[in-house]
Each structure stands twice: as structure tokens, then as C-alpha cells.
């Protein structure tokens, strides 16, 4: 390579780098980046509650028989929920009569599953009824004091946000 050719190449490289320099300075002057932090937080769900869960409101329970479960569900959350399962909850079934309560005769026949009950955000369902969902047991435990009583049954509700 002759000195003249080398010098020409050096000049071109110098010009290119000079343009790059000017462009970079202009870019630095013209743009402004920014950063910052924040967070997103998911809601903590509140438990569904029931306004009324009772059995035998129509007086259809008798020892050895099954009756209708009625309930109304309240959703305190800010989003709608679909209830899919209803099972026996913690606590005792009560009737308002100590002798009847001690006999402990009424229970759910089986958990109710595969349901699709929509509960609006902050709303209540209509009164739901499930026929043959509760039962009264036979024998000595079926106390006469239970006649004509309305039983309050604790239930556990399972649902999904919808």
C-alpha cells in the first residue's frame, strides 16, 4: 500500500469517526432517558359469607328422611365470584332448642359440587334451594324436641373469581 493510499483511507476513517462523534453528542443532547420504581399488588380475597343457611324451611325433614337446603350467599369482594362447591362447615348444626341440638340429628347428605352460582361483587345471591341435600338421622338421636324446628347448618363455600 502506498503512502498516498494509506493517507486517503485515514482521512475517510477520520471523517467517519468525526461524523459518529457529532452524531453521538447530538443524540446525547437530544434524548433523555428515565427510570423509576413502583409495584403492583394483588388483592387479598375476603371469605364469602352466608346470609342464611337453613334446612327444613318447608317442614320436610323427618327421621330417616331428607329435606331441602336453602341458603343465600354474600360476596364482600370487589369482584364477582362463582361458587362451585358447598360442603359442611366447621361448627354445630343448631335449631334453637338445646335438647335437639344435643341430639345432633341433621347434617348434609353429601357435599354439593360442580355448581356454578354467580355472586356479584359486593352482592348477594337470590335464595338458593337444593332439594334432598340435608338429612335427619334415625333412632334415639332423633329427639322429639326437633319437631317443627328450623336448623341452621354451617357450610363451607368454594368459589373462583369470575
Amino acid at each position: 500500500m502506498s503512502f498516498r493510499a494509506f493517507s486517503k483511507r485515514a482521512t475517510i476513517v477520520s471523517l467517519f469517526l468525526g461524523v459518529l462523534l457529532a452524531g453521538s453528542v447530538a443524540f446525547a443532547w437530544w434524548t433523555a432517558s428515565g427510570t423509576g420504581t413502583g409495584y403492583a399488588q394483588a388483592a387479598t380475597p375476603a371469605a364469602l359469607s352466608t346470609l342464611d343457611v337453613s334446612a327444613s324451611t318447608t317442614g320436610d325433614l323427618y327421621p330417616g328422611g331428607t329435606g331441602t337446603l336453602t341458603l343465600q350467599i354474600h360476596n364482600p369482594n370487589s369482584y364477582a365470584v362463582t361458587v362451585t362447591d358447598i360442603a359442611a362447615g366447621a361448627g354445630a348444626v343448631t335449631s334453637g332448642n338445646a335438647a335437639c341440638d344435643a341430639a345432633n340429628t341433621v347434617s348434609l347428605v353429601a357435599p354439593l359440587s360442580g355448581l356454578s352460582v354467580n355472586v356479584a361483587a359486593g352482592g348477594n345471591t337470590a335464595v338458593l334451594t337444593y332439594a334432598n341435600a340435608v338429612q335427619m338421622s334415625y333412632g334415639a338421636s332423633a329427639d322429639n324436641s326437633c319437631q317443627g324446628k328450623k336448623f341452621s347448618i354451617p357450610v363451607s363455600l368454594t368459589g373462583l373469581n369470575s
Partner: protein
Amino acid sequence: MHRPFRASVIAPILAGVLAASAIAFAGNIGVHGGVMAEKATRHLRIRGHVDHLFPGHGRTYRVFVRNPLDVAVEVHKVRAVVRRGGGPAGRCAASNLRVRTWRGVRRVPARSVRPIRLKVRLRRRAPTSCWGARWPIHYVARSVHR
């Protein structure tokens, strides 16, 4: 003969060094302290958070862009990088949360703050461990001087 040869060699090297410095300056890479530290504190600042998210639902929330510079800027893009979250129910992957990148033009006058709305959505099938979780978010904005 010897003198122009040296000039031809030194000139591109000098130009190269200057160009590299300018690129580093523009990109804020590999430089710490001094002028760069002062410049870094003068960049746009973005703050914003959102809460009460629940699976399957999207929300719009505001982030605030603070311009500490003496000139107005036009923000063209705000991107949110979500980190892994955690809460009372356990850890929750960042992939469960989607924050859409904002693109547009929002003028932020000198030494002032303007809001930009971002859309966020918690995945419908987010696991139970995501309930009550908090995800740190890092915002990155692009803007030009106006």
C-alpha cells in the same frame, strides 16, 4: 515525509477515542461518578403503583413522570419490567402479571410532573400463591428534549 504519516495515524485514533467517549456519554455506560453521576440524578423519574388486582381482570393505573431538567421533554415510551412477586401465600412469578408498554407522546414541561396511564392485567389462571402478592416494577422511559 515522516510528519504527515504520523498525523494520518494519530488523527483517526484521536477521533476514535472521542467517538467512544461520546457513545459512552450518550448511553451512560461504563462511567461512574463525577459528571455522569450528576447527569444521572437529572434524568426523568417515574413512580407509580397499582393494587387490588385480581385474576382475570385488567386495570389502568397512572405512573408519574417527573422531569427535573430545565427543558421540556416529550416522552414517547414507558416500559415496565416486572420482577418476581411474593406475598402471604407464597411466591408468584412475574409472568402472571402483564403491564403493557405505553407508546405515545406526552409532553412534560421543565421541572414538572405528568401522569401516564399504563394497563395491567393479572393472569386469569394465576395460582393461589398470587393472592395478596406484591410485584416490584422497574420503569424505563424514552423521551426527547423539546
